[in-house]
């Protein structure tokens, strides 16, 4: 696309949003009706195809639409309340779903009527996700699911889940998985809070006992679950590490603010360290910007893993340094009571929380060690470590 074309497309889109606003008065319309109309007008995620909330335009143009609608005072879909749905479930459903599945699930997902969670990790399958032992057995037109999932954020408020389960234990572990869309209000779904080092419980354990999922909610072919899950995880790493914030976004912004507002906290040895973190954060912003420009053409590949690696390191170093700057004040925490946070904000609450929560950044969505394996094997083409779990049926693996 030439610059002139791009400008014209941007102007056309601006006009389209203006027309939409003229025809839909958000001050009198019901919020959900307004959001559904916005979806039907293709203004939900413009990079999605027509008929599924989009217009088939470059992803980069979404920011313009959001800004224009926000400037008009229109309600949004509270994207922070449905991060897994928007960032992970939606692109996976778009890539692997049937027309019926896309029609049925994408609209309520986008409007926030259905919040999504992710039933992937298990007590015995963390980094080795392909080893999941939750079983799905076909029974007529349904799948009957039994097992235990863990680290499930939002499970206590979600209506839907993306689920990876074993449909065939007789083949090797990667080949025996299938991917499902699971109703969280189905009988047999039991959600229990899982308390973290911050004192809160933003995550859950989810116990699945004879949960019925209709075959129409299988995403992708039977046995194709690993491939579908990989697409989800690539999107997750971009969602976590891809940033998209401006300069001084994230933990470095908090640190810089503390430095500016409290000259008494400044230490000589800390100045260069602060500037290095600031530079690293700014370079991560640029790298994210370039990644998004590349993505405008296609789907995220394993390159997003490098972004997430960087993001976790910066968040941990900056939050650690912030406590150090605070000195004696850094010794005082605010609250250890068990709570259910409404949504997770890595840079929210107090410095002690930020420091502790950041520890999760190098674990959730693939540990930094696994990400280094992903980069070295799938991007750099280096061989994997010798493995003892290939060519063996899952049921025969040592456990």
């Amino acid at each position, binding site marked *: 696309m030439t610059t002139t074309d791009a400008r014209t497309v941007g102007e056309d889109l601006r006009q389209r949003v203006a027309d939409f606003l003229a025809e839909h008065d958000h001050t009198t319309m019901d919020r959900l009706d307004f959001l559904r109309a916005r979806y039907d007008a293709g203004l939900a995620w413009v990079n999605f195809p027509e008929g599924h909330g989009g217009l088939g335009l470059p992803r980069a143009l979404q920011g313009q639409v959001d800004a224009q609608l926000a400037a008009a005072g229109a309600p949004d879909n509270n994207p922070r309340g449905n991060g897994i749905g928007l960032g992970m479930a939606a692109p996976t459903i778009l890539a692997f779903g049937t027309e019926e599945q896309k029609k049925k699930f994408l609209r309520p997902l986008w409007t926030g009527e259905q919040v999504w969670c992710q039933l992937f990790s298990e007590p015995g399958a963390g980094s080795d996700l392909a080893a999941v032992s939750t079983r799905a057995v076909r029974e007529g037109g349904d799948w009957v699911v039994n097992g235990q999932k863990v680290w499930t954020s939002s499970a206590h408020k979600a209506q839907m889940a993306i689920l990876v389960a074993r449909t065939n234990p007789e083949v090797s572990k990667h080949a025996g998985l299938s991917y499902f869309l699971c109703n969280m209000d189905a009988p047999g779904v039991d959600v229990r809070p899982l308390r973290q080092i911050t004192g809160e419980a933003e995550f859950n354990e989810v116990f699945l006992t004879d949960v019925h999922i209709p075959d129409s909610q299988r995403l992708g072919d039977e046995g194709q679950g690993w491939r579908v899950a990989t697409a989800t995880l690539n999107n997750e790493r971009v969602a976590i590490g891809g940033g998209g914030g401006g300069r001084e976004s994230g933990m470095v912004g908090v640190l810089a603010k503390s430095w500016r507002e409290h000259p008494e906290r400044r230490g000589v040895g800390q100045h260069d360290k602060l500037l290095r973190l600031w530079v690293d954060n700014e370079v991560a912003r640029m790298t994210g910007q370039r990644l998004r420009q590349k993505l405008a053409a296609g789907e995220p590949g394993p390159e997003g893993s*490098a972004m997430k690696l960087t993001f976790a390191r910066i968040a941990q170093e900056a939050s650690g340094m912030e406590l150090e700057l605070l000195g004696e004040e850094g010794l005082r925490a605010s609250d250890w009571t068990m709570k259910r946070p409404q949504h997770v904000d890595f840079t929210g609450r107090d410095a002690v929380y930020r420091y502790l929560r950041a520890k999760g950044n190098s674990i959730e969505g693939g540990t930094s060690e696994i990400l280094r394996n992903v980069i070295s094997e799938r991007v*750099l083409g280096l061989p994997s470590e010798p493995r003892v779990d290939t060519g063996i049926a899952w049921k025969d693996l040592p456990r």
Partner: protein
Amino acid sequence: MSDLNLLYTDVEDDLRSSVRDLVAARSEPASVAAVYDGDRSVVDPLWRAIAGDLGLAGLLIPEERGGAGASAREVAVVLEELGRSVAPVPFLTSSVVATTVLLAAAPGGAADDLLAGLAAGERTAALVLPLAAGPGDEAPAFAVDADGRLTGSARSVAGALEADVLLVPVGTAGGTAVYAVPAADARIEPVVSLDMTRQLADVTIEGAAGQELLGGAQGGDAVARALEVGAALLASEQFGVAQWCLTTTITYLKDRRQFGRVVGGYQAIKHRLADLYAAVESAGAAARYAAAATAEDDPDAVVSTAVAQSFCSDVAVKAAEEAVQLHGGIGMTWEHPAHLYLKRAKADQIAFGTPATHRARLAELVDLPAPVPVG
């Protein structure tokens, strides 16, 4: 902060291929290494081919002044390739830094002929400042008398050995002026340099006649701008150096076997390479951002230059050090080209301001002041 395009255009990709093909044909690692032993026969033909045959010396010069009318974006792509091949040519010093100084002179003046000569690849210029001088550093060490004769000296100047004309910053009552002096009229003493692929020289001028190109009102800004552009685009060279180190090391480790296995399959090695990959990719984005911001004269250009220099300098050094280490014994030999990259990377880290000085600049630019000393 505008949404600068950080991708390469088709034109830039084509440019990259032609530079890569030419350098591959004209400069082998062995002939580059020979410059350390005093054999500089690779330099002239390579530079003539790049400057003249490909016409790259005039990239930054507008068409109406005889150049190609390209921008810092294209120049950055050339520098990536020259970094990737540690090419011993004065492209950065003549076609970027000296050219940027001259472009500050209004058309129709004394700089025109020189610019046309540079654009045609017939002449080569150098700004007489230490390679270590960065944006904001004090410039002139040279004085001019009433007859227009210059006196002074500068140490560790890059590009002077290859130049036929020197651009000399001169302190005057009205500010820093810039004079042109034929290289033949100066004493240019080669320095045994850390990086002999960008060999330095000590330049002494004792009463040589100079021609004023920029007066005291303009020269200081022109020199500062040239150092700014030089620093911004050096980042692309550093990215090229880093990328060569990373890819060469990976290729080697896919082949090298110890204990019956490919060394690149050991996790201790893979994780180091994954970290290096993340750093090199980030350096590519930072360098590209600085080039794009410079090309568009973006208000963010100064910050992005300080960011790119702070980041890319260290990544290039890290990549070269990892290349030496992960090649094992062979990486320590004169025969393997890794040392050419280590020397270039380390010299580039100091060139146009060290990373620490760029961070100190940044502290002022983005309002993160240093602590006030107590007492």
